[in-house]
């Protein structure tokens, strides 16, 4: 058995414990490593490696070789440099959207469950309507009207369209926690709302929230890719723009140009899969029977 010093956990060593457990889970560990290294490369890489601003007309669409490890694009730019520079915005949007989505969903779900009554009916009514509307279409239409000029705007936008499913799940979590007998006992002992929320309920929901946030990041990247591809998000260089441009330049029909299409796509897919592996392993660790919503 674990010694009592380990068991007397603060939030810090809860994180440590999780990491330890994750270290024993091969898929989770792999996911974590890929996730961390891609994040690191995307944020630190641009500081070390100069951006590829010049077009090299003589180097257009070079397949991968020793000289061009990941090939070149339609302007003869080095793909590997482009990929390193193209990750940051995608990831920032994903992180921001993930955090905002989770924050909105947790707030709405928790408030709805905590207050109940007409507040609950109203909020869940709105949530249900929001769930039924084909949100991606609405997102596309609205994106044509509102200029999503920076990462914040885009993240807010994705969050605005992404919260309802999660809010429902959080609500049912809070509802079930609210009925837990130790929460009732805390109410009876007049321990105060802050204690009940932050000491009794939140620690028991933390794992759930973390997983939800990772999943929200995944869907933010998913939607973001589509929006960029449709050209409604005018962004500079990022993975989405890279493959969309390559596609628009008909790279798909040019065998030599395959790299310029596949490399950014590969980066997106790899990152998505690392997130999925991470979240699935965390689910397994925290609650093997946790249900995944559709």
């Amino acid at each position, binding site marked *: 058995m674990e010694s*009592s010093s380990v068991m007397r956990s603060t939030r810090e060593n809860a994180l440590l414990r999780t990491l330890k457990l994750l270290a024993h889970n091969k898929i989770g560990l792999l996911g974590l490593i890929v996730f961390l290294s891609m994040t690191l490369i995307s944020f630190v890489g641009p500081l070390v490696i100069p951006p590829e601003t010049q077009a090299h007309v003589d180097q257009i669409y070079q397949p991968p070789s020793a000289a061009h490890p990941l090939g070149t694009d339609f302007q003869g730019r080095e793909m590997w440099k482009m990929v390193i520079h193209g990750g940051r915005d995608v990831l920032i949007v994903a992180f921001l959207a993930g955090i905002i989505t989770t924050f909105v969903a947790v707030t709405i779900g928790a408030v709805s469950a905590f207050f109940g009554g007409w507040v609950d009916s109203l909020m869940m009514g709105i949530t249900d309507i929001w769930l039924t509307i084909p949100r991606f279409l609405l997102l596309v239409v609205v994106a044509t009207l509102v200029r999503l000029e920076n990462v914040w705007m885009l993240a807010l936008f994705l969050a605005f369209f992404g919260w309802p499913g999660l809010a429902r799940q959080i609500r049912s979590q809070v509802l079930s926690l609210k009925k837990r*007998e*130790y929460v009732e*006992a805390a109410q009876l*002992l*007049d321990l105060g709302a802050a204690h009940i929320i932050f*000491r009794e309920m939140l620690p*028991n929901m933390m794992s759930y929230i973390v997983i939800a946030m990772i999943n929200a990041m995944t869907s933010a990247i998913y939607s973001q890719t589509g929006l960029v591809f449709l050209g409604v998000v005018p962004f500079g260089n990022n993975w989405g723009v890279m493959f969309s441009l390559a596609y628009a330049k008909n790279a798909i029909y040019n065998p030599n140009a395959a790299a310029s299409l596949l490399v950014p796509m590969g980066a997106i897919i790899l990152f998505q899969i690392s997130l999925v592996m991470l979240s699935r392993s965390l689910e397994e660790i925290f609650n093997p029977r946790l249900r995944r919503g559709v």
Partner: protein
Amino acid sequence: MTALIRLEHVTRRFQVKRRPGTPGVLGTPSVPFIKAVDDVSLEIQEGEILCVVGESGCGKTTTGKMIAGLLKPSQGKIFYQGEDITTLKDESWKRYRLGVQMIHQDPYASLNPTHSVYRTLAAPLKRHWPVGSESAIRSRARELLEMVDLTPASDFLDKYPHQLSGGQRQRVAVARSLTVNPSFIVADEAVSMVDVSIRISLLNTLLRLKKEMGLAVLFITHDLALAKYFAWEGRIGVMYLGRLVELAPARQLVEAPQHPYTKVLLSAIPEADPDVTRTKEHIQLRSMDVPSLLRLPSGCAFHPRCPFFEGGDCETVVPQLTSFRDGGAEYSGAEGLGTAYSSAVACHPAQRRRQAGLVNETAAEAD
């Protein structure tokens, strides 16, 4: 003397919730409310024991939760030390809030799995005893564990719920409620999920605490034998479909039940003695169907099943719980329901017999 807790015509309605996505059935009348507790009046004195017995869905847990303030009555009033609990403010509210505590049924859910025993006990101590130093709180926590017979206390302080047995967890829950010096404890099926072999010792701990600290206890259970054991010196109330149908001193209720439902219950319970249980006479019900709370029978809710059904007002008038003085005179309303040795019954024929003075002897005997 003002009663510690007094319920006056307390009713609690619930909206019938359907599963999400479940349509109501066309053609059947949709009654959106059920009365989980209907017009219950009773009093509990300081240091008294009252057991509430009934089958699942009879409203006993709802009653307990209303007394503890976890649910609000839809109608009627609850008084704590003579004051209506809905009007309490600040100091007097806090006195009530901390004065009434609850022990829950499920030992696996009653403690927060992420908190050690020490942390579970320290949280209320720190909040309500803010001057205490860390070491003072620790020694108080140790004292509390000893009070609930978790000895040596230092073995338990740093344990987590998953390292304790069901009985031990319930003891920690009792200790937690004692942190705020309550005067009243609602124990809702507190031992039903604890192993049979250790139930009694948990009950004995509660009885000892009651004696030492002058606690009043409302013990909610479906097990009449357990109720008889626990409430030997107190009273037992029997609930059926949301109403209190009989309220009497424990021994009197078991030995001379007045209400047909109580009689049937007592006759139906098997005993852990083959001779007794195989020769016991079982009163047959008129019907095995338990009425739904959604569609209660008219008059006395027990009449369609009652083996002593006499017709007449049984079918039309809901019998009120009424207590009697010796000689058959009636107490008015809730007045008599708190007196320790009065017995009350909600059954027309039984009341008629009491008025005629036919059943006084048993009440006198039980003293």
